């Protein structure tokens, strides 16, 4: 299955998703967070068994969570993005689909304060337990700036 075929099937199943192929064997898709789990299950079944990483991003109007998936068999890299509102950011955890998401989600929680619903152990990962704030947010004030 090529990237074009995966994109075609995705568009058929999730008509609202914005699916693009920026270059050969790359696929990027933006989906609404309500259908995130469905899209992830679909991709897992399509052979994307390696979750490379999860990146939180602080965009101006909302947070973005980007999932990078790789298929060992098809050799396609998928970038799956979804937006989360800044007020009370919550999103479904994908840990049931890829168990390796555990620490990536904890890191995104630690750095951006995004809460992953259904995560069994959502604690801070890199920052100390008593740390106040989420350092990779753009509104986080660095001490020397104050």
């Amino acid at each position, binding site marked *: 299955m090529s990237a074009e075929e995966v994109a075609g099937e995705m568009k058929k199943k999730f008509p609202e998703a914005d699916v693009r192929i920026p270059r050969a*064997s790359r696929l990027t898709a933006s989906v609404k967070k309500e259908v995130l789990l469905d899209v992830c299950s679909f991709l897992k079944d399509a052979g994307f*068994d*390696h*979750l*490379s*990483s999860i*990146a939180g*991003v*602080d965009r101006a109007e909302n947070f973005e969570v*980007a999932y*990078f998936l*790789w298929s*060992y068999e098809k*050799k396609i*890299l998928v*970038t799956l993005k979804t937006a989360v509102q800044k007020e009370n950011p919550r999103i479904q955890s994908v840990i049931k689909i*890829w*168990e*390796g998401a*555990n*620490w990536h989600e904890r890191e995104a929680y630690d*750095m951006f304060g995004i809460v992953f619903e259904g995560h069994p152990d959502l604690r*801070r*990962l*890199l*920052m*100390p337990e008593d740390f106040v704030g989420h*350092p*990779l947010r753009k509104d986080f004030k*660095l001490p020397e700036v104050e």
Partner: protein
Amino acid sequence: MAEMWINMGPQHPATHGLWDLRIKVDGDMILDADPQIGYIHRGIEKLGENRNYTQFIPLADRTGYASPMTWAILYVLTVEELMDIKVPPRATYIRTIAFELQRMASHLLFVYGMAENVGAMWPPLVYAYRERELLLDLFQILTGARFHFNYPRIGGVKWDIPQTFEAQTKKALDVIESKLKEYERMFDESEIFLMRTKGVAVLRKEDAIRMGVTGPTLRACGVKEDLRKSEPYMCYSDFDFGIPTGKNGDLYDRWVVRIAEIRESAKIVRQALDRIPGGAVATKVPAAVVKSVTVLDGETGYEDLCVIMAKVPKVIKPPPGEAYVRVEDSRGESAMYIISDGTERPYRIKIRSPIFCTLSALKYMMRGARVADVPPIMEGIDILLSEVDR
């Protein structure tokens, strides 16, 4: 006997780095493991947002202190993808040579650590350091530094390889390859080593894939997966080399795979040295602010260097966009995700560390092992805390 949690770390006598491994034990049988990390978190991702693109290269070196070259090369590859820069072939070859030499140096560090952690104290431990020294000497004549090289540049490398480099490299490779046989004899004929590694800390293939484990640890489980083959970057498609794999996914296989990888890397370096094309080692990067550079006159001898430096502008402003680039690092799949908003500073740098993911799978390796096996298991994944904590 009652079950209890024990903290191993954050200080480790074998200098794995600062991290705390909590293990649940019944007697000396390990039932569960819960690594605590973040002790050397330096906020490299945040630091990157407050520096310009060129200033991040030394920080990329420091992301993985046992493998600085691979991280710096990964960073420049990502920025080049972001800006759509074509790198001259000679620069790509030099990068590939440096990348593989770094892999060899890093794996020799693993040999050292493994020897130390199974209790084979002096000879093998110092031998691996002795051979690694040859590689550090090579880096010194190539980059001017033995560690934290700051050598790759966006659009190429800092300077061309020196004249003596090729001959010296080939000599060093000959020595290392002959010594590898010695290591293999030393370890494979040691009953203690075999007893302490065979069948210990077995990671099943399915668990490894599910947890996102990559690199030699994954290949030791029998998965033939290497980004240099499956998604060739730089000029790996030009070379003939194999992907060593294991069968059982135990500590011994992790050892065997890495020793075999040193040989494959040597093969790549030899081929690259023989085929390296001529030409420039840096390309002109589209600049937002082009500064005029005075080229010194030829008599001073600094002319060449100045010409190269003149090609790289002082301030780089990639167009708005993003890039996610992955390479096969010494420890697995390392990746960087850089978002540009069109200014001189990256909007976001996300670093994907291979050991970060391998460490989260540690509980699957630890279950059923003995407390005395913990140090070799830690070393068996070739742990490097600076890239885990970032």
